[in-house]
């Protein structure tokens, strides 16, 4: 049988991918869609993962170029500019009214007596 829910689609990979899929679904919902094709969600999740890794790699490269072991904000900005992502509008995006926040899983206390 074909998987139906979005959670099932990525469930086989790992938990982080699953959470990333949830986050991407939230972003898709924010922009006004009610449904999403499985392949489209998969594409965007893959892009998101790839983008985060790429930003990390580029920032790391810039910090090492400056003989630093830890990246600072300037390295990240340079990486973003390299990738063609501008900081313009980021402030407005941050303040958007209808943002989805994924609540972290509740900490389960082991009741040992």
């Amino acid at each position, binding site marked *: 049988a074909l998987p139906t829910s979005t959670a099932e689609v990525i469930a086989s990979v790992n938990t982080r991918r699953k959470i990333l899929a949830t986050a991407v679904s939230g972003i*898709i919902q924010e922009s006004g869609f009610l449904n999403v094709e499985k392949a489209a969600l998969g594409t965007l999740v893959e892009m*998101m*993962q790839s983008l985060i890794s790429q930003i*990390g790699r580029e920032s790391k490269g810039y910090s090492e170029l400056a003989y630093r072991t830890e990246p600072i904000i300037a390295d990240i900005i340079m990486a973003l500019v390299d990738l063609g992502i501008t900081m313009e509008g*980021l402030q407005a995006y941050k303040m958007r009214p209808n943002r989805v926040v994924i609540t972290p899983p509740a900490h389960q206390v082991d009741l040992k007596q």
Partner: protein
Amino acid sequence: GSGATGHRASGVPLSDFLLQLEDYNPTIPDAVTAYYLNSSGFEAADGRLVRLISLAAQKFISDITNDALQHCKMRGSQQSSSKTKGKDKRYTLTMEDLTPVLAEYGISVKKPHYYI
């Protein structure tokens, strides 16, 4: 060249912007972003940097989905005159809408023959 720290995020100095991220929760949880960053060698002691990256990545995807929605609406208005004159339209994000938008961003996506 000019220092990157001189960049401004829509009027707010970057240092202030970073301070505002102190108590802010992006849609992507910090732990997830940090994991993928760590897997590519990036390790920041400052959690705000991770949040900045989450936010930038979110905005990138969000811009794409917004463009896809415009595509979807335009496509819908062209062919909707006949039957689908529903009062509230339920939009579905399909590869058909996503592919041309991604092409605009310089990303070529081919529809996979099978996707599980």
